[in-house]
């Protein structure tokens, strides 16, 4: 189990190492001339006012919550799909199919609810 993730770990370390080495190289080669104007955030040439990290629209948060619901659905459903054919061969096709149909129906009802509630309206 762990063995098969070895190459991924290797790739991960290598990718970060590669990126880190290049950034370190720029730090050595590149110029370092610091002045306050250069270090300002870009705001179309005027002095930046206030902090950028203020409140943002609640829609973004709403989308994130909806995403979590649907992604959890995907996490549930995809392994089920992987074993669908095997169950069908074992003669349990209808049973497992109805199970998922029930789950999907609940999901669709939830989807209809958020649609009617206007959670997906962007204006």
């Amino acid at each position: 189990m762990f063995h098969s993730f070895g190459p991924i770990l290797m790739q991960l370390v290598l990718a970060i190492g590669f990126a880190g080495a290049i950034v370190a190289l720029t730090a050595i080669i590149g110029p370092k001339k610091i002045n306050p104007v250069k270090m300002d955030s870009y705001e179309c040439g005027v002095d930046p006012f206030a902090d950028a990290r203020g409140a943002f629209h609640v829609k973004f948060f709403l989308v994130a919550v909806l995403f979590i619901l649907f992604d959890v659905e995907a996490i549930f459903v995809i392994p089920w799909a992987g074993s669908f054919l095997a169950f069908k061969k074992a003669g349990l096709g209808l049973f497992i199919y109805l199970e998922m149909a029930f789950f999907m129906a609940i999901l669709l009802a939830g989807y209809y609810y958020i649609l009617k509630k206007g959670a997906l309206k962007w204006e």
Partner: protein
Amino acid sequence: MTQFIYMFIFAVIYLLSIAVAAGFLTVVERRIAGRMQSRIGPNRVGPQGIVQWIADAVKALQKEDIIPTDAHSFLFKIAPYLVFMGVFLTLVPIPFGAYTLMENLDTGIFYVLAMASFVVIGVMMGGWASNNKWSLLGGMRSAAQMISYEVPAALAVFVVVVMAGTLNFQKIVFSQGASPVDWYVFRNPFAFIAFNIFFIAALAEGNRVPFDIPEAESELVSGYNTEYSGMRFLFFFLAEWGNLVVIGALVSTLFFGGWNFWFEYTLEFSVPGRYPIRFEVLGFLWFLFKVSIFVFIIIWIRWTLPRLRIDQLMDICWKYMVPIGLFASIGILLWMYFVPEKSLADTIMRYSMTSFGGLTILYFFYRVFQNLRVTKAKIYANPFV
């Protein structure tokens, strides 16, 4: 120990080839864009400008690494790594041939879906850490867009998993055949719908036009990467073009038969010793050909379509693609339940869909040539000018 060394060498080759492919693609894209806009594009550095990307990289290497005083220094620094990682690790379980793959993961599809999320985290982190209004807007929009489009993409993948009965990419390739009739796109109408949804969602997840709202140059001054400079900026850039390869590879593996090019491939062939090396090479080239066709289509779309508005983008995802995806996933279950493989209905559907697909492509070329004839436009087919 020797295994460890092999693993290391393979990983290095792998990393470099993706980096080179992504760099090379930036030049290819600019040349194609030039052609589509009746100009030449970069052709000065090296023959036909093919080493332009090295020049760009060297230039970026010499630039100052600026971290704005207002920015959150630590998050600002690590955001590009996350994006870079997200793209480079995604390709690990995708087979380029019977043996040419990093790791044959049994949970390959989950792994890819999970790794794609790294990009979202990186982009949002970069946008937030920059402490710039444009960056924050770009980062938030990008996060909203990417996570939204992951839902239809997951539904489309679900359709493939139902047909293949596995999450392993190599087995998905084996369960499709070499000929177009056996590809999943042309198996049944639901798979075709799934392919379209997946391709569009992949475009949106890769921040490509028409879904490039996060970096809308003319509105958000490049969005989440506004404050980045030098090599860190280049990582975002490299990730975007690396993503093209990822999209192309995923689409051709899941729906277009992957590297499988010869009719008699079966699982038996994957046993070492039974498998001629020339098949491996041909399969690899065939896969690269498919990937490059999809990459070309993505570039073509970029230089043809205008950008969407954010509310349109969200509407397309949540009000059209998610219901259509749900429809396709319910439909494929019914199809798999009532139409057994190699039955008459299955065969008829496969052949009619394949011929429909073929005829559509032929009709497209017919229209192109007819337009050329009517408008009497001259066609400059030579790419090397």
